[in-house]
């Protein structure tokens, strides 16, 4: 795995700079913090939406700042939490007096730092609420759902909350829908090969030539089981069974799917997986609404993919397809 980079220590700052320079109508840098991205044009009359997390997952997290999506994002180093100071700046930049909803993945450092930042801005009079996305069914049992890590499902929460916030509803209302969305999401992934951290220069984990790991986290956190590489259909069936064991769907339920590549796995393979997921779902009467297949939450050039199921209701659906302006989301 070869990287097109300059000084590894500049990796994050240069990629942020490139993002802003490439899409100046979508993103801009916060005046007070070089690791905080905000929309090119601050919105003035709505609940602010903030996220934050480590770098190396583009389009997550920064990519989803934009009209109809998030307002600001605090950017940590590769696979590392943003600092409390950065998060506090992101919150201040998102606030316009209507309060701020923080949406983050369930990672120890991120959670702590957001908590601390929320306490700091509270002293300054900024009202916040927090949604901790926990969709990865591999990382804890259903009884401890709140302990699960947040992975690709996060983007559904960004989009639904983002769409709803744009309508001018209150912080409490956005929180409620975001929370409902979070509870309606299940994700399970599989890792095939590691990525290389620019500063470390070595792979994040080791895995045999013919091995895969079901449920491995996007930083290489241990998964459910390490297995021999099997056919796309067998693998997909296994993933579907585990998801639907966790998440019973009724005949009249309607869902959206996200088939997400961790980076290197190409679209062709995602569609082979997507096809099989849909075949599995079509066995019962669950309706499929709109699907998302692509690179939505990555670990740089890691190979692997995840399957996310979002159960819809009218309000979630409406906001999922509400207008947005973001290079990584097609309506």
């Amino acid at each position: 795995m070869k990287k097109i980079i300059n000084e590894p220590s500049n990796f994050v700052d240069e990629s942020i700079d490139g993002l802003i320079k490439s899409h100046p109508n979508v993103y801009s840098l916060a005046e007070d913090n070089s690791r905080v991205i905000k929309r090119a044009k601050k919105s003035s009359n709505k609940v602010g939406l903030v996220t934050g997390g480590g770098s190396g997952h583009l389009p997550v997290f920064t990519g989803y700042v934009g009209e109809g999506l998030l307002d600001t994002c605090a950017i940590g180093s590769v696979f590392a939490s943003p600092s409390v100071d950065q998060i506090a700046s992101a919150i201040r930049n998102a606030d316009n007096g209507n309060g701020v909803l923080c949406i983050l993945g369930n990672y120890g450092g991120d959670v702590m730092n957001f908590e601390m930042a929320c306490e700091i801005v509270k002293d300054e009079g900024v009202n916040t609420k927090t949604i901790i996305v926990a969709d990865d069914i591999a990382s804890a049992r259903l009884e401890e759902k709140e302990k699960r890590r947040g992975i690709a499902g996060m983007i559904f929460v960004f989009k639904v909350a983002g769409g709803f916030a744009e309508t001018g509803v209150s912080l409490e209302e956005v929180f409620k829908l975001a929370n409902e969305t979070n509870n309606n999401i299940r994700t399970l992934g599989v890792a095939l090969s590691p990525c290389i951290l620019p500063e470390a220069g070595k792979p994040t984990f080791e895995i045999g030539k013919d091995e895969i790991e079901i449920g491995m986290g996007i930083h290489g956190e241990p998964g459910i089981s390490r297995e021999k590489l099997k056919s796309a259909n067998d693998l997909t069936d296994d993933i579907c069974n585990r998801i639907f064991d966790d998440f019973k769907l009724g005949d009249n339920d309607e869902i959206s799917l996200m088939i997400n590549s961790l980076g290197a796995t190409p679209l062709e393979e995602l569609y082979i997986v997507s096809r099989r997921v849909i075949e599995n779902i079509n066995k019962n009467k669950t309706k499929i609404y709109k699907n998302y297949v692509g690179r939505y939450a990555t670990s740089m050039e890691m190979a692997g993919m995840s399957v996310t199921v979002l159960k819809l209701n009218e309000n979630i659906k409406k906001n999922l397809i509400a207008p947005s302006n973001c290079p990584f989301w097609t309506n």
Partner: protein
Amino acid sequence: MLQVIVLFGQIKMLNKKNFIFILEKLFEQSKVCYDEFNSADGKIGDGDLGITILHGLEEINKNIDSFSEDMGENFKICSKAFVKRSGSSFGTLIAFSLMNIAKNLNNKKECNHEDIIVIFKTALNTIMERGKTNIGDKTIADTLNLFIQKLEENKNYSELFKLASKEALQNFKGKQILVGRARMFNEKTKELDDPGMYALSKLSEIF
């Protein structure tokens, strides 16, 4: 060093003056131990612990001029300063602790031995709550826990911190780290000190 021993061997309380003195000493020590802390963290983490501690203490020392007699206010300044430059767990846990300590001290000008015990208990509780840690997970919480036990038996600060932090490291030799980034290394963490506990032990050498 004599001055410190005098301070802690005899005065047995914390006020603006000796707090500043301790913070200066800690900053000096963090420079000395910078590489050591980073590499201890690097073995089972992201190798930024030296950075976190140095930057945090540097920022605190930059703000010492704004210290008042009110120890609550001083701890609040420390909390804000520490967190400003840190992105890592250690930094946030310490900053959270300093903030809660500030709240508990209110307008106190002098912290006596009982207050000092409260300070460490507040830190321990904060870390357990925010870090979702338990005693026995092999983290800085375990060092603080031993500090509290020893403080309840003993008032000789000049020996206490140094010895207790070393003893804490000893107690966890062969045990696995159960939280934070290091837990992902499983078995490997048995033979190694928790970097945070190790750092507390080296920092305690200023006393």
